[in-house]
């Protein structure tokens, strides 16, 4: 009997089977669709609670792309949970002050339900007892938050304090060496370089080589092309940039068990000497007072061959209207193999009026699906998954480097008052680059003060 002979009982069987398979397939699709709606395609189903419906959450956020991306997706969150979220957007310099005022005012009704925390407030906030230990909530998140989705490096930089996870990583902003790949391949440029430097233009592998390169380039076309765009402004700018030099030569702020400063040892002084040299002979005039605005502008106008700077400077140069360097820039790890990685993470203050609703938000925003969407929108993902997504790399080619940058990057040492560390170091570094002190003296003075932070 033929299989599809309608009079055959077998046919019924096959038809039934087909229908069964079809309906199973349909059911499967429906299930998958439902899963996608609530968070992931496949594996575990993530759901969000509606028990906080009607709540409004307030948060203080930095005003930039990452925030805007999330803001655009907030209606989804509201649809899922009934929770409304309002961002108060401010700029970085004022965030810390505003937060400290709030948090120091003690428990009770604060204004913000959740926070985004920069990597050098992490120890401060955690050890002062101002934030909840979010790590404790993770196991009950139903799969929305899984710490293995982040590399150890990222967790070390801005989630872990004294072995406990206080924060959930949000995005990273690594620093690396930005350089003009078009110039690296331009024959005329390479010839001019060889004439001055005596050797071929090649990607430097150590900090010394790098400084030699920028000094030579500075002489090729003075006033039109600088070897490096540097930011020597007192405070955050100079310290962040210097860290790349320091880590690049293998130095560090403190010794391994963080019991004594090591910034004034051989390596530290070497890093500073090289840094001062680069700034005096390889960078733009006035670099000692320059900040990110200045270096960014220089980069975008094509007047700098390189810059030890943030990844997003490169990204901005690709997107901003005025940029003369679209498609010409690339980034690589800081010569010497290690640069600075910064990161932001989510935290819930103890003064939060709605901590549980806030946690719902964090679950949602860091769930794999939402995280992937953010990444595709341009976010520099803190999670590992986006980097394995070819679409992400295709859209933002420089993201391919991020994995390396983050893997080799370091954060600031584990002292409570990291902001103070930056302030102290900044003052003495600035002294050194503006001719006030010799490198050894500057580092010694810095070490004196850094000792007190332990």
């Amino acid at each position, binding site marked *: 009997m033929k299989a599809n002979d309608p009079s055959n009982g077998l046919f019924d069987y096959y038809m039934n089977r087909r229908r069964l398979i079809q309906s199973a397939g349909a059911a499967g699709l429906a299930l998958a669709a439902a899963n996608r709606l609530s968070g992931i395609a496949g594996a575990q189903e993530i759901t969000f609670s509606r028990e906080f419906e009607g709540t409004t959450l307030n948060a203080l956020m930095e*005003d930039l792309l990452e925030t805007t991306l999330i803001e655009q997706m907030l209606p989804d969150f509201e649809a899922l949970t009934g929770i409304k979220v309002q961002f108060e957007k*401010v*700029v970085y310099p004022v965030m810390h002050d505003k937060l400290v*005022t709030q948090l120091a*005012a003690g428990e009770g009704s604060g*204004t913000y339900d959740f926070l985004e925390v920069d990597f050098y407030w992490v120890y401060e906030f955690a050890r002062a007892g101002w934030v909840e230990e979010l790590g404790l909530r993770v196991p009950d998140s139903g799969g929305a938050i899984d710490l293995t989705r982040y590399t150890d490096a990222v967790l070390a930089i801005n989630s872990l304090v004294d072995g406990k996870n206080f924060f959930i990583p949000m995005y990273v902003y690594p620093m690396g060496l930005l350089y003009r790949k078009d110039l690296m391949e331009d024959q005329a440029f390479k010839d001019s370089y060889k004439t001055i430097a005596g050797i071929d233009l090649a990607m430097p592998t150590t900090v010394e080589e790098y400084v030699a390169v920028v000094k030579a380039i500075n002489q090729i076309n003075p006033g039109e092309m600088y070897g490096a765009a540097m930011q020597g402004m007192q405070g955050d700018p100079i310290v962040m940039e210097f860290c790349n030099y320091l880590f690049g030569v293998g130095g560090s702020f403190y010794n391994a068990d963080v019991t004594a400063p090591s910034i004034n040892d051989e390596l530290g002084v070497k890093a500073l000497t090289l840094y001062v040299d680069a700034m005096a002979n390889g960078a733009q005039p006035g670099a000692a007072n320059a900040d*990110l*605005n200045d270096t960014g502008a220089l980069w975008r*106008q094509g007047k700098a061959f390189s810059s030890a700077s943030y990844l997003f400077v490169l990204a*901005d140069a690709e997107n901003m209207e005025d940029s003369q360097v679209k498609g010409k820039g690339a980034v690589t790890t800081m010569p010497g193999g290690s640069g600075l990685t910064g990161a932001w993470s989510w935290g819930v203050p103890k003064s939060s009026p709605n901590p549980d609703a806030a946690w719902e938000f964090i679950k949602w925003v860091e769930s794999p699906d939402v995280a992937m969407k953010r990444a595709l929108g341009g976010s520099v993902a803190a999670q590992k998954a986006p980097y394995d997504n070819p679409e992400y790399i295709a859209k933002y080619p420089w993201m391919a480097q991020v994995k390396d940058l983050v893997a080799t990057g370091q954060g600031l040492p584990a002292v409570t008052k990291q902001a103070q560390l930056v302030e102290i170091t900044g003052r003495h570094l600035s002294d050194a680059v503006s001719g006030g002190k010799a490198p050894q003296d500057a580092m010694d003075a810095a070490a004196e003060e850094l000792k007190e932070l332990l």
Partner: protein
Amino acid sequence: MQPTASATHVVNKTSSKRGGPSLGRIATHLILSFASLIILLPVLWTMRTSFGSPDLAYRPGDFWFSPTADNYRKIFGELKFQNYLWNSLWIAVATAVASLAIGSLASYSIARFRTGGTPLSLAILGTQMLPPVTLVIPLYLLVRQRLDVLGIEISLLDKGWTLVVVYLSFNLPFVVWILIGFFQSIPPEIEEAAKVDGASPFQSFWQIVLPVSLPGLLAAGVFAFVLSWNEFLFALILTGRESRTMPVALSSLMTSQGNQVGAICAATVAMMLPIVVLTWVIQRFLVRGLTFGAVK
């Protein structure tokens, strides 16, 4: 007594009757022009940059750029700066008026009757000798209390009136001190005359002294207005989205993508607009000069 107009002619031989300005006049104009230029050039630069693309600020020699209204469109259309401008304006005016109302009373009392002696005057001024930075946390603690007014809970944070009260307290000492100086330079004969006519102390203050001291009141009022208009730290800490003022809004243009210079310049130009009104007020009441101060 000669009428004041001709007194002026006697006092200031500024122009020879044969026409043409005197040397002194020419020098005056030169100096004033030079000073004006120094003030004006950065302002003009700001205006020019407000009509350009973000990087125009970094190209000082670029005169033939094509102007764009993008920055203005951005701050008024996208970022709604007109709200913040309004906030700044009404808060500054309210502060100025309140400071004058309360402060003039105290100044008069101190100027005429030496109320409280040195300690009081110094104490009043002393409240301003602490840097704002120090006052921020305690003031925040004070302000974040939620008040129960007739059963309704109101928050003092993010309210313009909170800022008015706080600014009032910053302005009062200066207003008081400025006005003391002015009240002291008014001859007491004026009030004596009023007393003889049967006026109460308050009446003589209100109807006689105040009008005569208008320049001083204006100066103090302008001072209070300006202080409030430009204040940053407390506006930052005590306001949120509703009551945000211009200085805070300006700072929000210092983004991580670099300072949005074009937008900053546009916003600065917008903030300068009240100067037109302010100058008119000052012209009218402050520099008219000759009609005030006459006793008989």
